């Protein structure tokens, strides 16, 4: 399986959701391959999936970006990333993105039947994520509220 076949549905879903839901435009994006260790910018949402493909999706951003996303969603101002609204907003955005991406993949490849797990959120300094034998690919998206990074790993993906 090539990197494009699993990263692009997620990149596409991310730019769609950011644009449609939050009116955030992506000014530029680049892809990168990563090893099995992923270092967070400060705020990370994890959504696992299983079925025809097994793996996980990360939505990663800085704490400031996470706070801004929550403000855009709710219209309120927040001063801490620990605020429940900020955490929930991040979880919800990642849930919608991965839902859209997986629907897209399941529709274009009938029989895969991929299903998602509920999202988990982590915020703090120096958070690193590790997966055994799963090499992953990232897409870095530059927006006016900061860099939003997505990372997808699929078992058996290269």
């Amino acid at each position, binding site marked *: 399986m090539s990197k494009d076949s699993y990263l692009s549905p997620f990149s596409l879903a991310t730019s769609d959701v950011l644009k449609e839901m939050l009116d955030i435009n992506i000014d530029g994006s680049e892809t990168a391959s990563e090893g099995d260790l992923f270092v967070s910018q400060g705020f990370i949402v994890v959504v696992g999936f299983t079925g025809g493909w097994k793996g996980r999706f990360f939505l990663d951003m800085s704490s400031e970006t996470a706070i801004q996303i929550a403000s855009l969603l709710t219209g309120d101002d927040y001063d801490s990333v620990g605020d429940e609204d900020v955490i*929930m907003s991040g979880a919800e955005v990642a849930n919608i993105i991965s839902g859209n991406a997986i629907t897209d993949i399941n529709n274009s490849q009938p029989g895969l039947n991929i*299903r998602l797990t509920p999202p*988990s959120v982590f*915020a703090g300094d120096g958070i690193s*994520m590790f*997966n055994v034998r799963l090499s992953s690919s990232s897409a870095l998206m530059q927006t006016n509220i900061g860099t939003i990074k997505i990372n997808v790993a699929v078992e058996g993906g290269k």
Partner: protein
Amino acid sequence: MDVKHINAFVSGLLNVSNMLGINDIKRTGLAKNESLKTDNDVNIIIGLVGDLRGNVVLSLQEATACNIASKMMGGVPVEQFDLMPKSALCEMANMIAGNSVSNLEQAGSLVDITPPTLVNGRNMISMISQVETIIVQFAASEGTIAINISLE
């Protein structure tokens, strides 16, 4: 939440621990929480989909993780929590999940698991599930381990 689901994970953890040579592991406590949050610096998340949907998180301190990794590698001292012990811990979590899922199957629930993701960091704020979570604590000479089970 059904007690047979919790028991499947408890016996999964005990079976795998014994298999890895952690023989003195004991169940020390049980708690219930409104949501899944963790204070430990090493957390391994495994997602569940199928008849049950949710997350299971194995949560422990870095020192405990190093002790367990050392035990798994036949007593080789592990001082730093680098890729080697991370990989060992993920493998252990995967074995526990696999074992638990086969226990669940015997109890009549078909569940599929995602590959484990290890999250490591200090002063973390976490929100893993907003649903009721059962936390089962265990203690062994390597340290304490908690298994958090949150099912939707």
